[in-house]
């Protein structure tokens, strides 16, 4: 069942270069249409500056789109007000990247976790402590932690608190914007397991924003690859990792470092292919004519410099490339 849908979603920013410089338009998100089903993990991957966090903010209604619409269970979330808006806020929660910046240092953990329950009238005052204890246990912390302040916790524990806060209102969708990238590997695995458990037990859906393709491969059901504000490829995780089509997806997958162990005793240098280095990342403010990926593409054709490829569907996957 479809939970969330975006239709031709756009967010443009005006960027001024220099004091007397001309104002240019930066297309952070440019015509994105995605659909997230319930009980699924929809991952958005791409390099920094590709617009994936802007997309998350638009989905969360933390930012107003320049054009396009976001529908949550059929309601246009940028059009709702009052009670409907409050219900949207309850159903869609967020976990941010930096758990150090997303917890108020002057509030105890109890205050942080009880606040959404009070605002949304979920629990009566005498039930609050019990409910907060439950939440802490769900994310693997202890009830006695509730009287402490954020600075008393490590990064991994803080991210657990952020997850507990997101769970407080029993949401249907959690938007997680790089929830693991500030954590060490061993802690990252703990949080990844926690998210997996929550997904199974609570039938939660995720919009999972990440630049770490190993994590996405592990956790996601559907993957959308973004490049300079546009989705260039979208498919099931298995499909995209086994058989990437878009040259940018191929480039990304080739570039991920992987633990590889030579079975023989001879040590071989496992060098990444040199195709990756085809100039610097394109600049978002000045998109070249035609395909945005043209300047970096190892498989470009003359057609690509004159005509922008649209996102076309074929065989259960979508690719924006003239090759397909």
């Amino acid at each position, binding site marked *: 069942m479809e939970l969330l849908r975006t239709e031709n979603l756009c967010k443009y920013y005006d960027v001024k270069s220099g004091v007397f410089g001309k104002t240019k338009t930066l297309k952070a998100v440019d015509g994105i249409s995605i659909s997230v089903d319930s009980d699924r993990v929809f991952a958005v991957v791409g*390099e*920094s500056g590709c617009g994936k966090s802007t997309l998350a903010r638009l989905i969360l209604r933390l930012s107003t789109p320049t054009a396009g619409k976001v529908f949550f269970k059929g309601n246009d979330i940028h059009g709702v007000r009052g009670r409907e808006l409050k219900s949207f806020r309850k159903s869609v929660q967020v976990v941010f990247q930096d758990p150090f910046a997303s917890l108020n240092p002057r509030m105890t953990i109890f205050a942080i976790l009880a606040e959404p329950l009070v605002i949304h009238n979920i629990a009566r005052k005498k039930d609050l402590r019990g409910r907060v204890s439950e939440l802490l246990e769900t994310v693997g912390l202890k009830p006695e932690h509730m009287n402490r302040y954020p600075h008393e916790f*490590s990064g*991994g*524990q803080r991210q657990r608190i952020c997850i507990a806060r997101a769970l407080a209102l029993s949401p249907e969708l959690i938007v997680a914007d790089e929830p693991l990238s500030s954590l*060490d*590997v*061993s*802690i*990252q*695995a*703990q949080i*990844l*397991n926690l998210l997996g458990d929550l997904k199974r037990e609570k039938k939660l859906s995720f919009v999972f924003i990440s*630049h770490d*393709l*190993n*994590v996405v*491969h*592990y*956790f996601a059901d559907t993957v959308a690859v973004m490049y300079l504000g546009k989705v260039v490829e979208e498919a099931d*995780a*298995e499909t995209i990792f086994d058989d990437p089509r878009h040259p940018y997806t191929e*480039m*990304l997958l*080739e*570039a*991920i*470092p*992987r*633990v*590889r*162990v*030579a079975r023989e*005793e*001879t*040590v*071989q*240098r*496992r*060098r*990444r292919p*040199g195709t*990756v*280095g085809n*100039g*610097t*990342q394109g600049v978002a403010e000045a998109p070249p004519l035609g395909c945005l990926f043209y300047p970096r593409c190892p498989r470009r054709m003359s057609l690509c410099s004159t005509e922008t490829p649209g996102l076309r569907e074929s065989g259960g996957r979508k690719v924006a490339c003239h090759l397909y």
Partner: protein
Amino acid sequence: MAADGRRSTTVARDSSLLRIKDLNIHFRKRGGPSAAVSGLELEIRHGETFGLAGESGCGKSITALSIMGLLPASARATGKILFSPRDREEVDLLSLDSAALRSVRGKEIGMVFQEPMTSLNPVFTIGYQVAEVLTTHEGLSARAATEKAVELLRLVHIPSPERRIKDYPHQLSGGMRQRVMIAMAVACNPSLLIADEPTTALDVTIQAEILNLLVDIKENRGMSVLLITHDLAIISENADRVAVMYAGRIVEIAPVDLLFRKPAHPYTQGLLQSLPVARNIQLKPIPGSVPAPDELPPGCKFSPRCAYRTGACDTEEPQLRMIEQDHGTRCIRAEEIVRQGATWNY
């Protein structure tokens, strides 16, 4: 190590360039000194890439800073860091005065830091900053140094370097800035290049380019590289030997393939089982988190998080011991752990 003929150094490959002996680093604190690195022993050989892995706070960066003589004022290092570059006598870097240290730092040992924006001076052009290394250490004239700077920027694949030398750091992308840092670090053809998380701030595709560049330069110039990273995959692809640090100690040291095939310390094993390498496999994270430096247990520092813990682990801290050639571990049950074999999936 297999003879693969990819190095062109005149010095025997197995001779050591840098030997760290019983390095201890303490920070002065109100409640008494706090240890950041304890009893660290390692050797970097001529022409090799040595990986130093571990999670944040394990002491890997502070070790690098102590080699460079760049420890913060509140830190004190004891022990020996013996450095023997190609045509010079062995020196103990920890015993050098600041003038002698300056002649080594930047000349014999170059360093690339994680954040290229904060390591470059925003008010000077990149050409000036690269040339400065050469006027300082090689005594070149400003003109000759600028010419050499252009060459160096070309070496690190910066397009049209003649024009780029007039750019300021803010005009470059993160990957380009890191290239400039590498150009500065290798300007004087150092014997050792320390790269501390050189690609952590960069996107994956740029990361791959920078790592390839580092390897090329290393091989062309016969340098040794100390590659510090939290990313085990980067270590597995680029290092010859690797040491894993935990709580200021080396807990395992091995040639890179041995470490990944036969991890002999529960912490290394835990790290490998935490990597999301295949779908639908339950990750086995290490329980708990790293204790604060002044809350470390008396025996094995990893024991509170260890699945193999026995009574003996609590009383005495195990020393780093060799279980086979070149393969050391700080675990009393290492043989058992190796015998039980691998359960990870890469």
